[in-house]
């Protein structure tokens, strides 16, 4: 059947020590990982400790400038902006992780199934993908929140649904690119079931692709959450969200620009962080993509 020797994308060599060594020389990876780590630490810490409680409002302390007391100043209700940013990091990370988790947990098996079962099932999965893709994420988020009300959970669902086809596609594409590989034939000759082969050979070999995609989706999810909260459809008070902080600060730009600047920078840094991390990982894990990275 095959006229030519099929050309495969080179598989990553599996050499953990050299990957870590390379990691510290990759600018993208180091910057990205640092930013992501900072955001992550801020978010995790906020569960146990913030400089001030963000659900106790004290109007007498409102709109204070930066000081040793309030590192980033206070907002119009006298809340500590630094604390708000920390809680906002938590919100962003939770939303992003869960949304990407939903996408992966549902999308990857679907994609693998579509790759394994040609014909009707594949067609069904791919059409469903198209269908989900056809609903721009924000539009479905607006619809979902109008049914269930605005809130973090519904934002997570809306963003997560949009992630499903993304991961289904990546998983299917990755699995298909492996489909002619001789080691899969060898595994079948060893009497292994499709399920076992998927588990032992396919998933580990597309894991890199999935990890890279996941970091990209994480940053997209953070952006989407910010957008939804900006529209008032995402996280609700007393929880803090960067998008919401930005929205509330907008009319006060002239006399309290810090209110709009900090959450804006927080969004940019975290998205930048995850994007760079994704680039760095792709750089390290997927040699074919190496030259794409700036």
């Amino acid at each position: 059947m095959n006229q030519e020797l099929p050309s495969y994308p080179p598989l990553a060599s599996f050499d953990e020590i050299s990957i870590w060594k390379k990691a510290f020389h990759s600018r993208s990876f180091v910057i990205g990982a640092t930013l992501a780590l900072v955001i992550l630490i801020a978010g995790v810490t906020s569960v146990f400790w913030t400089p001030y409680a963000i659900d106790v409002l004290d109007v007498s302390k409102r709109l204070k400038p930066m000081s040793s007391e309030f590192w980033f100043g206070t907002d119009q209700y006298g809340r500590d902006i630094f604390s708000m940013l920390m809680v906002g990091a938590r919100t962003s990370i939770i939303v992003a992780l869960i949304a990407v988790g939903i996408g992966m947990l549902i999308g990857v098996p679907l994609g693998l199934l579509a790759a394994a079962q040609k014909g009707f099932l594949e067609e069904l999965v791919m059409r469903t993908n198209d269908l989900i893709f056809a609903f721009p994420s924000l539009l479905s988020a607006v619809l979902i929140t109008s049914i269930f009300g605005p809130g973090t959970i519904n934002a997570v669902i809306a963003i997560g649904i949009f992630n499903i086809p993304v991961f289904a596609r990546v998983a299917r594409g990755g699995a298909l690119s492996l489909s002619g590989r001789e080691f899969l034939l060898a595994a079948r000759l060893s009497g292994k079931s499709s399920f076992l082969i998927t588990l032992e050979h396919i998933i580990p070999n597309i894991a890199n692709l999935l990890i890279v995609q996941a970091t990209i989706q994480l940053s997209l999810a953070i952006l989407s959450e910010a957008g939804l909260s900006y529209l008032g459809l995402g996280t609700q008070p007393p929880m803090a969200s960067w998008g919401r902080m930005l929205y509330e600060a907008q009319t006060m730009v002239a006399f309290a620009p810090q209110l709009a600047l900090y959450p804006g920078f927080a969004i940019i840094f975290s998205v930048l962080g995850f994007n760079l991390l994704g680039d760095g990982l792709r750089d390290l894990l997927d040699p074919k993509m190496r030259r794409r990275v700036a």
Partner: protein
Amino acid sequence: MHAKSLKSRLLCLAGGAALVLAALTGAHGSAEAKSSLSLGMVLEPPHLDATAGAAAAIDEVVYQNVFQGLTRIGPDGSVLPSLAKSWDVSEDGMTYRFHLQTGVLFHDGTPFSADDVKFSLDRARAEGSVNAQKPLFAAISDVVVVDPQTVNIKLTTPSGNLAYNLAWGDAVIVSPKTAETNKTQPVGTGPFKFDRWMKGQEIRISRFDQYWGDQPKLEKASFRFISDPNAAFAAMISGDLDAFPTFSAPETIIQFQADPRFEVAIGTTEGETILAMNNTRGPLKNKLVRQAISHAVNKQALIDGAMFGLGTPIGTHFAPHHPAYNDLTGLYPYDPAKAKELLAKAGYPDGFSATLKLPPPTYARRGGELIASDLKKIGIDLKIVPVEWAQWLSEVFKETNYDFTIVSHVEPMDIGIYARDKYYFNYNSDAFKKLIEELNVTVDEEKRYELLKQAQQVISEDAVNVYLFQLAKSAVWNANVKGLWRNSPTPGNDLSQVYWANN
């Protein structure tokens, strides 16, 4: 190697983009003789027939601009002649005779006459009428055309209010020819005629050249609908809008006040803003709990925090500018310790949790956060649930499925709602009902005021709701715009006297 050509290509592109930008930006804001006004509004009217809808937004566009009544309300709230030059009241006070202006034309060219008055008033009073304010016409028994310039209105009972009632936007005179199409193509007798409605964006009106009265100075005006406070602020501060009579972002008012380009007018409204409590739900059944909550809310901080100081504290459900107002702000001073004590006495030493459903307006959403924070201090854990108006109406107002909500009651003199059965806060007091019944049959003004004051006392002592503040009306306009109303005794934006000072 081919850097140059690529670079030059890019430079060309950048240059082109810059040119386009320059061309597009150049003409904006060029100094033209200003004879037009663009005015911002928060809500877009559902349609433009002032006689067929309750929405204030309708009146804010058409009242006195497109449609006119026999009488009108002046900027100070007084009743002034409009389509009626003058009127006499019969001895018994049962008949009003209106003398109409001459030479009045509808915008479609049809001459105005007493027949139109009869048509309009009969239409509004009719059985199947969709007029939102039918009680205005309740006293009228008949409308009689005397001659084309004179009309008699007969009453069933003497009423001193008829001239005032007929000044409402709901009582404007329409032509029988166009009555059915006024919703989308309003045709009236006012100084401006309707031009165009771009849904979701703006309504344009322009000067009606055959207007019977003094020609307005403005040639054109547009009403733009911007519900988002951020966008409204940007539009105003950038000069895209010339005026915004009910500005929705109080935090921005300071900026306008500090800017000499703008003039700011702060007025009052009929909007009592309350933290409504469902009086039949759980701990809220207990008057002590409600009183505790009344003590726990720091109202001044609320006004400062949520409304940036715009708003008057009230202690009851009554407009403070009304002579019958009973100042009860001292009844529940901010006192968390006392609140805790009351709560413990009521059997909730550790507080409880409840939900707070918040409709979309800024005062509710912002106030909600502050109140949640206040109540947390006495152990009451509020879960904030933001709802849209549609949900608020069905869940809170109709099904009374809520614990707390924040809303502003904008109807004037509406303390009577506390006497209603099954009203959404489920207050049931025989004492209060008795007061209102008595009030309804009392004619003497002084006696009425006394009863009203008592009524206020009752609901405040029962702590039916937490009375937060009276909503302020903040208007912003370009300092060169003259002639806009500072107060609004009735919904409307009368543009007939508006002009640009520098022209």
